[in-house]
């Protein structure tokens, strides 16, 4: 275990450099990894960054899940290593079956690129461990297909186990229809897998990692992820 994070680059990814920049800013050790790489044994964690993998001409993430790197991502996930999908990366994790649900087009059928508020719902898992329940974070959203849906049973499982970690809200932390930017079911913005080490969220924490860029609220999420690199039981 090296503590090193692989930031996977699919053709069409575009947030990979931003994620590396933000992780390094927080003291993390992150490196770009091309999607055809089939050995991640030197890495302790993985981020699938935002973008438009393979153009998203088919369903988002539907082609990326077949990339040569994905069996390695699945292996690390099964071994308990932290795996984080941001935006398009979240969509890829859903397509790969590492997280439940899927993202469909935004309620208003328009691309949304603006800061939104999310409330920390649970500190279980690698994304919110360093935050407190009830914290309201201001983080940019940037997606057309960001509207989270899942079958009722999967939703129940998520909600009852406290695996919904972030929910869209207003600046005061109220969750209602008007503070839900894209129509996501139960205003879900971020979730974790059953073991807590696989996480996905639609907003971009790397875009909220420096005050000069308007918000540093995303740091706590990336710090949680980095901290988990050393606590997670990884078998390589």
């Amino acid at each position, binding site marked *: 275990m090296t503590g090193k994070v692989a930031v996977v680059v699919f053709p069409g*990814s575009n947030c990979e450099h931003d994620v590396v*920049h933000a992780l390094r800013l927080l003291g993390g050790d992150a490196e770009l990894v091309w999607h055809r790489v089939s050995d991640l044994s030197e890495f302790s964690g993985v981020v699938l960054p935002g973008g438009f993998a393979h153009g998203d*001409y088919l369903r988002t993430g539907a082609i990326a899940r077949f990339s040569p790197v994905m069996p390695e991502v699945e292996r690390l996930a099964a071994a308990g290593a932290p795996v984080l999908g941001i935006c398009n990366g979240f969509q890829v994790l859903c397509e790969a079956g590492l997280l439940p649900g899927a993202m469909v087009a935004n309620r208003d059928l*328009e691309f*949304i690129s603006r800061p939104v508020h999310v409330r920390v719902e649970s500190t279980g898992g690698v994304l919110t461990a360093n935050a407190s329940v009830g914290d309201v974070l201001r983080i940019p959203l*940037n997606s057309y297909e960001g509207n989270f849906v899942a079958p009722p049973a999967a939703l129940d499982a998520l909600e009852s186990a406290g695996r919904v970690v972030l929910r869209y809200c207003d600046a005061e932390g109220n969750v209602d229809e008007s503070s839900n930017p894209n129509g996501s079911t139960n205003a879900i913005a971020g979730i974790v897998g059953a073991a807590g080490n696989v996480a996905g969220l639609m907003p971009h924490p790397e875009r909220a990692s420096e005050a000069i*860029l308007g918000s540093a609220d995303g740091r706590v999420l990336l710090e949680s992820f980095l901290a988990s690199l050393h606590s997670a039981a990884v078998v390589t």
Partner: protein
Amino acid sequence: MTSVLSPHAQLGMTDGEYDSLVAILGREPRPAELAMYSVMWSEHCSYKSSRAWLGRFPTEAPWVVVGPGENAGVVDLGDGWLAALRIESHNHPSFVEPYQGAATGVGGILRDIFTMGARPIAVWNAIRFGSLDDARNRYLLQGVVSGIAGYGNAVGVPTLGGELELSAGYAKNPLVNVMALGLLRREQLVLSGASGEGNLAVLLGASTGRDGIGGASILASTGFDEASGAKRPSVQIGDPFEEKKLIEACLELYDRGLVVGIQDLGAAGISCAASESAAKGGMGMVVDLDDVPLREPDMTPGEILMSESQERMLAIVTPQDLHSVKEVAAKWEIDAAVIGTVTAGGALEVRHHGEVVADVPAASLSEGAPSYRRPAAPPAVLERLWSDAPVLPAGIDMEDVLLRLLDDPAIGDRSWIYHQYDHLLFLNTVVEPGHDGALLRIKGTDKALAVSTDGNGAVCGLDPRRGAARIVYEAALNVAVVGTRPYAVVDNLNLGNPEKPAVMWQLIETIEGMSEACEALGIPVVGGNVSLYNETDGADIDPTPVVGMLGLADPIPQQPPRLDRAEEGMGIWLVGPEDDADFAAAAYTRVVLAHLGGRPGDVDHEVGPAVVRAATKLAQAGVPVVHDLSAGGMAVALAEVCIRSGVGASVVERSWRGLLAEGPHRFLVVAPAGALPDLPGVPTRKVGTMGGTRIDFGRHGSVALEHARRVWQEALPRRLR
């Protein structure tokens, strides 16, 4: 009975041009040759009506690395950093098919930037349509915005803003101008010229199809009429994913030093790329069309040469490096096909199925193009328009007037547009869209760049020289109020049919006005684009120059001014000359009086640059709000600050005219009392105080802040529902 046009006339070439082509070749052209020259000598590619006048622009400064004539202008930012910038129009394609027209406009401008070796870091859009009361114009606006979002977001280059103008004159000829900015290290600069006999011409990217054939000659170089829908096949189709891979592949090729020269394929496709790279390098080239990857096998040589299929580049590489080039292309999953060889001499020879289909002097396609000095004369209506100044009432109700102005969709909140654009990618955006100019940091340095695009067809229609100078000063002020100093300009001149003397006069006046202002500000013009034949059914658009201004800050302002930083109790100052008379084409005159006439006031080349320097100084000093006055004058500028900051204000002016006049060189400052630095030589006057829940103009009336905010916020979206 329909008349039968000769082959050259069908391709948009005049008899005189055909005769000079025959003189160059010493024979009749072959069909493929005629196809190539018809496009390369089109107005769009050759600038034949404007070229004689463009030399007027000041293009030199010690920091200019590459001036006009290459794919993009390049300026030196210091410490080894360069910026590449370029603006282009995609007006006609966007009218015929708004989504693809706008999308491919973004794709094209990005290629111009990464052709220079730069990574594109941001895009701006200046867009103009007819009134949104008409469903067709709403369709065009929505189509163009989704096209920009669809392509720009997916290709992974943030869109940092732009401008919107709505006027009946653009109803049948919308304008879509796109500007892009790239960043590179000095050692990464790549030029387009082909060199080295025996080097290979490698076509990178997408395969070649029948889309966009004649885009430059048929679409962009003639006016419009009712049959324009039939020109839809001349519009190209964009593929942002292919472009994203092409960007990454090219940047990797440059990093590894694998290209000698490179040229993007835009208007006139392979014809243009091959002839220009050969001509610029003083070389020739042999191209074999059988080696071009095609989407349709039965394309004719002329079609292959003219196709404007998107997402293609022509790289010149040495034979030794070909293997590595192909490896990089394979990694990024793009085609790389050797289609030609660089030769000595200067002939461009094109082969197809073993036959020579073209053999022409490469330089004659670009440098041999005709150049006209068409007759120019002021429009006959000009004197009458100038003497028809708006008649202003003695008093007005500011509540009614301000609400009507804020309800104007080109003045109200435009976040419906820019919230569809990814404007944060690359983590550079310090001041986002929605302020006067966007501010971008350059990571790893203490520098920042600002960009603003500005135009004003209404003012330029009344006086193109004054109007063009005013937009240069406005753009300069817009980059100054976020803390940068104006550094370089690119321009997009959108005008009507140059075969009309009035349009030629407008073109010459526009160039003169812009040049004078740039000279006074000491900033070079490093690139530009001319879009003519913006006419439909014989009616020309107002002359609409658009300025793209780059500003540089070193160091980056620690707390750049923002419209939302005003607080209760702060003072409000007006900086710049007093004005209560400039109402020609002002927002009040257009929106409330619905009047068109009068002569816009002139710029002042002494005061103008001093005001710009004052704005930069205040913004660098950390003043909370520094906001340029534009449409709607002081009243609208103040309302924008109040709405964005959530604080009311009280302003006492003797005459209402001072609240709404739109004379140039003026901005508002909001700052704690006593915090305003001294501004020698620039008029500064305190006009009011922030506070309360109303925007209060004393005896001229007042508006509840909340009411103003709702009207402003809904002005654009309510018209699109």
